[in-house]
Each structure stands twice: as structure tokens, then as C-alpha cells.
């Protein structure tokens, strides 16, 4: 049995590496994105095999699903505007000499080989922090150790991660200000029906994943990504059209998670407790509260990242933002 598993591991690892290379080498940009999505899903599968279901869920939903959607949207944008037959490579500023290309490849290879040799030459498999985590679990307020690390032991990191998302949406709005609306893809009636059928189910799954995160794999980021998928579908079906008047609300929803998280961190301090130190008896309540608000922010922010530009009224723009 273990031999069969080993074979599976080898094949999967080989496929992951081969598809990664293929995604970069394939000529067509659309094929590149498809291969990337396959690569992401296989990586997630490998991570399930390595007993990391939380990470696999996050990689499949955020790292592959949403990233793939963003890439497709961008490709659509590039192809729809100007350069009808746009292919990657068309924007190449200058051709790279063959020697330089080989030099680059050799360099990357040498770096990785060097790292591999250095790592193999040293003792591996030290004990990590699992004992420390296990000892502190009863005080954390949740049962899923990954959630405990994210929302309690390293809550500061997670707050900053939410801030990174907030920064991203601010930067995207800033970059695309004054940009015209993206041409909307027309997806047809079958898609509309599909969306109507699956939207409620997706909402249910998103909330479930958030809730389950306290005990089982899942949590704010995975749940937020599922809810963001609803946002994407609503944007694509035209069920929701961003309107300039919604900007105030959108801004509030973007910052909701950050503010709640940071305010809690400061408010629990005092009386001998440090910032971020939740009293054990309230820890579960606080964590779930923070997670719920952060999930809302993540879902809205991810949807906004997909939509791109800030919905401002531009001259001659009334057709698209009625």
C-alpha cells in the first residue's frame, strides 16, 4: 500500500513540476491560465496529501480560483481593447538574446540545486512548534489548531494580512482611477440559470466554512473566498452592478475587518494583559466575532479586487454604470 502511495506521490510531484513549466512555456495566454489553474489544484491535492487541508482549501479557493479569475479578467481586458489578436509576447520590449535566456535558466537552476544540496546536507525534521501549540490549545478558545494560530497565537500577523488585502484594494482603486469600464463578457442564458441555482448554495457553503473553522479545516479566509465567489457570479451575471453611490458603503465594508480586529487587540490590553491577549473565557466569542467581520471584509474586498476600478462616474460612462 505504501508503495502505491509513494508512486502516487512521485507522479503527483512530477505533474506539479511539469505543469508549472508548461504554464510558462505554452504559447497561448488562455492555455497558460488554464494550465496554471490545473497546477494550483494539483498543488492543493499535494497539500491534502501532506495533511494540510486548511492550506489546500485556501490555495484552491484563493490562490487558484480567485487568482485564475483575476488573470482571466485581465486577459479579457487586454484582448478586448486594441490589439485584437493580442498574444503574450507581443508586448515584448526587446528580444532576449539566447545566451542571456540560457544564462537565466542556468542561474535559476544553480540557485535551486545549491539550496537543495545545502538542505540535504543538514539534519532535517526538527521538532517545530507543534508541542507549544498543543499545550496552548486549551487556552486558545478554538479547537482547530490552524485557526488558533491564525486568530490567537499569531493574531498580529493575521491582522496585518487583512491590512495587506485592504492595501491591495486601495492600490487597485488608485491605479485604475479614470480608467474606462471594462467590457463586460456576455455569458448567455445557461450561465444565468446556473448562477441563480448555485448562488444560495454557495452562500450556505461560505458561512459553513467560516463556522466550521473553529473546529475543522476552514475559517475566515476560506469562507470569505467562497462568499467572494458569490460576488464574482453576481458581477458576471449583472445581478449586481457597482454604482458610484455604493462607494461609501464599500469603503466601510473594506475596513470593517481591520478596524474590528485592531480595536479588539487594543481594547483587551490593560490590567496586566498585553495587546491581542484575549481573556481565555471570552476567547471563543471574540475570535468568532472577529472572524465573522473579517470574513465580510475579505469577501467584499476580493470581489472588489476582481471588479477592479472604483465605480466612479466618468464622462461618457453612463451606459455602463446606470
Amino acid at each position, binding site marked *: 500500500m505504501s508503495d502505491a502511495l509513494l508512486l502516487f506521490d512521485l507522479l503527483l510531484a512530477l505533474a506539479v513540476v511539469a505543469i508549472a513549466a508548461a504554464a510558462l512555456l505554452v504559447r497561448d495566454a488562455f492555455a497558460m491560465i488554464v494550465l496554471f489553474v490545473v497546477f494550483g489544484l494539483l498543488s492543493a491535492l499535494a497539500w491534502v496529501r501532506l495533511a494540510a487541508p486548511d492550506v489546500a482549501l485556501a490555495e484552491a479557493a484563493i490562490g487558484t480560483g480567485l487568482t485564475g479569475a483575476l488573470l482571466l479578467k485581465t486577459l479579457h481586458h487586454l484582448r478586448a481593447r486594441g490589439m485584437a489578436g493580442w498574444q503574450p509576447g507581443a508586448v515584448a520590449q526587446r528580444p532576449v538574446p539566447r545566451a542571456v535566456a540560457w544564462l537565466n535558466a542556468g542561474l535559476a537552476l544553480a540557485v535551486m540545486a545549491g539550496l537543495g544540496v545545502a538542505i540535504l*546536507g543538514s539534519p532535517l525534521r526538527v521538532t517545530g512548534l507543534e508541542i507549544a501549540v498543543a499545550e496552548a490549545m486549551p487556552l486558545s478558545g478554538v479547537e482547530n489548531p490552524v485557526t488558533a494560530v491564525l486568530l490567537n497565537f499569531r493574531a498580529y500577523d493575521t491582522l496585518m494580512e487583512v491590512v495587506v488585502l485592504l492595501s491591495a484594494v486601495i492600490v487597485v482603486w488608485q491605479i485604475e482611477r479614470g480608467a474606462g469600464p471594462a467590457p463586460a463578457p456576455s455569458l448567455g442564458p445557461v450561465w444565468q440559470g446556473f448562477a441563480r441555482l448555485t448562488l444560495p448554495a454557495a452562500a450556505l457553503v461560505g458561512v459553513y466554512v467560516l463556522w466550521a473553522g473553529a473546529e475543522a479545516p476552514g475559517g475566515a479566509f476560506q469562507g470569505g473566498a467562497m462568499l467572494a465567489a458569490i460576488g464574482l457570479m453576481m458581477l458576471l451575471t449583472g445581478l449586481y452592478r457597482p454604482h458610484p453611490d455604493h462607494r461609501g458603503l464599500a469603503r466601510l465594508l473594506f475596513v470593517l475587518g481591520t478596524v474590528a480586529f485592531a480595536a479588539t487587540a487594543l481594547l483587551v490590553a490593560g490590567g496586566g494583559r498585553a495587546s491581542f491577549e484575549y481573556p481565555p473565557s471570552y476567547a471563543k466569542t471574540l475570535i468568532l466575532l472577529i472572524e465573522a467581520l473579517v470574513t465580510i471584509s475579505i469577501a467584499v474586498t476580493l470581489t472588489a479586487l476582481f471588479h477592479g476600478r472604483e465605480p466612479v462616474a466618468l464622462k461618457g460612462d453612463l451606459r455602463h454604470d446606470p
Partner: protein
Amino acid sequence: MTGPDWLTLSIILPLFGAVAAFILPRAAAGLGLTTVAATTLCVLMMADQVAALGAVTVPLGGWGAPLGIELRADGLSVAMLALTGMVGLLVSVSAIDAFAGDRTARQRQYFWPLWLLLLSGLNGVYLGTDLFNLYVMIEIIALAAVGLTVLGGTREALRAGLDYVYASILGALLFLLGVGLIYLQLGRLDFAGVIAAPPSAAMTAALAVMFVGLALKTALFPLHVWLPAAHANAAAPASALLSGLVVKGALYIVLRLAGYMPALTEDILTLIGLMGAGAVIWGGIQALRAERLKLLVAWSTVAQIGLIFVALARAGERGLSDSWKAAALLILAHGIAKAAMFLAAGRIKDEIGHDRIRDLDRSPIRPTLAQVTFALAAISLIGLPPSLGFIGKWQLMEGAMMAGYWHWVAITMIGTLFSVAYFSRVLAGFLRFDRVRGGPLAEHHGWSGADAAPLILASAAVLLGLAAGPIIAFIDLGAGGAMP
């Protein structure tokens, strides 16, 4: 820990400010300036604590490292925080003026949230003691800095911004790979654990990967290619922040790690020094060739960063614990002077209408105060006494001479000569009046209240050299203990 938690506050306060400025775009400038001032106040209170206690540690969440994350303030962190606060405050003041008009309304709207996020990230780096946390922080810095780079929205700025994004992400990911490799070795990521690690090939490899990533982020030669365009094409306050503060974030991490790494051998230090020497020479040559003022200033950043790495390497393995002081002084001096210089260059460009170096002396408008500011900043960057830059270079050369490393002394001298040469190109243009066409000089000399903030910064860069003794004593606080 006694008293309020100034460390956490100095990170979270700018965060709240950024949120407020984002939600209330109309009041962004006022909110932003207030927040920066309040954060600087936090840093001053922290400085007071550190002066009294030596070093302050906050175990966030009460867990303590390595399970949780700890914040730690010692002399060096507070010096960097103070640099950020001081430069940030004065750049903020001049940003109010720079983004005043209707034409820049949207730039103003986004400048404040981005700058406050940047401040939060920088403060987080200076107080962080956990490698992964540093990764998250440098990503916040990177995103905010990219937003600031492309604030103007021109094609050149966007192109430079995209190159910057690639360099920045790649640098951060190399750092992350190093973090992963270290976790593989040690099973923990806090500084204390990393410092206590026995030297091994794997540790050296992991640290080397992290160093390459950070070198990419600080634009150390030959990984500097993204910097000149990014810094030269941004709006003036953004350039001042990028060149004065942002590159210091990654530089500080290098400094922190380099000071305590047992894995650093003489060979690696020499290599770092050689890269720095390359930057000094190549940056100098490019600054001599630059046609525009802001590009010249940006290339001089490449050269100065190289000099800071020379300072790190100059004393060799034996003197490493000492050589970071020279590097720290040079970082402080460069941060203040370069911010002043970019603000002055922006003012000159605004008043004259262009920043072509060879036509600087043909303008009938003479923005005198901005020119004086530029000259003062140049004094500190060249390293003339009594400026802070002079003290930094003096420390560097003294250490190198005592160690008998004459080649580093020579590199420093060459860098100084280069900087005299390229700054003279600009200063000569300020002083010549004979090529002005079209009658006498204009009545208005082209200066206003907007020149005050850069002038204060430039004066500080020169005058702080007189207070070098206390500064060196301060950055030494808390450095001698068992912890970093």
C-alpha cells in the same frame, strides 16, 4: 513592561489613520497629518522608555516567542522609528502643499491612506522580531510603496511601478523561501531562536536567499535596475518617502540579521562589500550621466545604499559588532538628507517648470530656498563636516583603517569624489546667472511656505552631526544584551 504599550500603538495608530483617511477622503489631509504627529509622539514616549530601561519587549497576545510574536524596541529600532517619524512628519507637511490644487484632488485622496499604511508597515518592521512577520510587513510596505510610485498616473510612472512590483514581490518571495528553509532547520522563526542556531550549510543557504531578496528590495547593485525609474517618476513627496524611508525597511532587516549572524563569514562580507563598491561606482557614473535632476538624485540613492553596504562589510568578521554603527548612522543621514533633496528637487521642478539639469541655469525664476535646501542636503550626502553624513563616513573610514582594510577606504573616497562631481553639476547651475535669457531675473524668486519643511529637514541633516555622540550612544542601547 510599564505604562502604555507604545510599541503596538505606533503600529496600529497609523492603521486607524489610514482607515479614517480612506473612508473620509475630503478630510484625508487633516486626518493624515494628525495621525503622523500622534504616531511620532508615541515614538517619543517609546524613546523615553527605552532610554530608561534599555530595551522594551511586548509579547503580543501574551504568548511570548516562539509561539507568539514579540515586539521589541531598542536603541536602533527607536532611532529608525524616529527617523521615520521626523521625515514622515515633514514630508506630510509638504505633501499638503504639493497636493493642494484641484488638479491633484484624487492624488491627495489616495496619498494619505497609502502613506499611513506605509508608516504602519515601516514601524512594524522596526519593532518586529519574527521573520515571518517581517515578510508580511515588507509586503504591506511594498504594496503601499507601489501605490505611491504610480500616484501620478503617467505612463512612465506606471511602467516603473510595474517593474517595482515585480522586483518587490520577487524579493519578498525569496525572503519567504529563506524563512521556510529556516523553519525547516530550526522549527521556530523568532530572532532569539535564529541567533542561537548553530552555523550550518543549510542556515547559510537560507540566510543567503533572504539576503538576495532583501538586496533586491533595497536595490543593491546589481539588483538596482528598478529603482532609478521608480524614484525619479513618482510625485515629489512620494519620491521623498520612497528614497528616504522605504528602502531603509529592508536595509534595516539586513542590518539586524547581519549584526548577529554567526553564519556570516569573511568571504560573504567581502562579497557584500564588493556589491556595495559596485553600487558606489556604477551609481556615481549614472548620476554623472543623468539628464534630469530627479534621475540624478535617484541614482545617487543607488550609490549611497552601496556605501551603506560597504560600511557593513568594512570591518570584516572581527569588527562586525561595531561596523553596524557606521551603517546605522549612514542610514539615518541618508534618510533625512535624501528626503529633503527629493522634496527640494520637486519644488525646483514645480517652480522652473522642468528638471533638465543643463537648462537649470537658463531659468529666469530662481527658487532660492529650494536651491539652498538642495545644497544643504548635498553637503550631508557628500559627507562634509559637520553633517550627519560626515560622521557616518568618518566612522566607516576610521574602522576600516584600524582594521587595515585600505581598499574600503579607497572605495569611500571614490564615492565621495563621485558625489562631489555629480552634485556640482546641479549646484553650478544654481549659481550661474549669466545664461539667463530674456531680461533680468524675475521679481518673484520662486519660494513659498512649501520650502519650509524640506529646508528644516536639510538643516537637520547637517546639524544633527553635532549631536552625533548622543545619537551613537542611543543606538547602542539594548544592543549589548543576550537578545539582539
